């Protein structure tokens, strides 16, 4: 199983772009990279998922270099409401293997006014 390493915490200011990098040196060929956001007293919320290069949706972008040994979640122009824990998960998302996806300790992002 691919182990992930993320910063424990990050601080940012409102309106700034925030980049959270996740290292996954032993990622396997079939593994995807998925990011989740979790607010206190809520379940994690899916943000974005990708396999290679760049993926963008309405809330974030995910950058994956060619060697796929790391990935960067980019949050444009953060607001106070983006303060949360962000988790990077790496693993095979096929039906038979998805149960092996594991959460690490996540990155606590604090957005300051």
């Amino acid at each position, binding site marked *: 199983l691919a182990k992930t390493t993320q910063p424990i915490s990050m601080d940012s200011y409102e309106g700034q772009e925030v980049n959270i990098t996740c290292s996954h040196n032993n990622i396997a060929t079939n593994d995807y990279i*998925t990011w989740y956001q979790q607010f206190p007293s*809520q379940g994690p919320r899916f943000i974005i998922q990708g396999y290679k290069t760049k993926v963008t949706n309405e809330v974030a972008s995910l950058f994956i270099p060619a060697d796929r040994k790391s990935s960067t979640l980019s949050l444009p122009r953060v607001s106070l409401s983006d303060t949360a824990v962000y988790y990077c998960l790496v693993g095979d*998302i096929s039906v038979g293997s998805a*149960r092996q996806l594991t959460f690490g300790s996540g990155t606590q992002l604090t957005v300051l006014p």
Partner: protein
Amino acid sequence: GAGVSQSPRYKVAKRGQDVALRCDPISGHVSLFWYQQALGQGPEFLTYFQNEAQLDKSGLPSDRFFAERPEGSVSTLKIQRTQQEDSAVYLCASSLLGGHGWFFGPGTRLTVL
């Protein structure tokens, strides 16, 4: 419903009591996961269902933990003879198939006194 629901949201049990936690996944979702989240930690995998079949229960911490999904929709996590170390938030997640974007419920916070 529009999302995954869990009940009760909060449960206080005396040590030794049995508890049952319910998860209503999104209609039509094949995959269902249970996770346990201790305070300040990431969610940890407990068990996985594909329709009514429990394909993986390797994360259940002891034989006091039992999960079922008899008709392939609603799932129940039962904990017998609760212990203080069982205190945690229990999260349920469902997905259409495998790991293509899990939808988490709000969780049940279990406190064992």
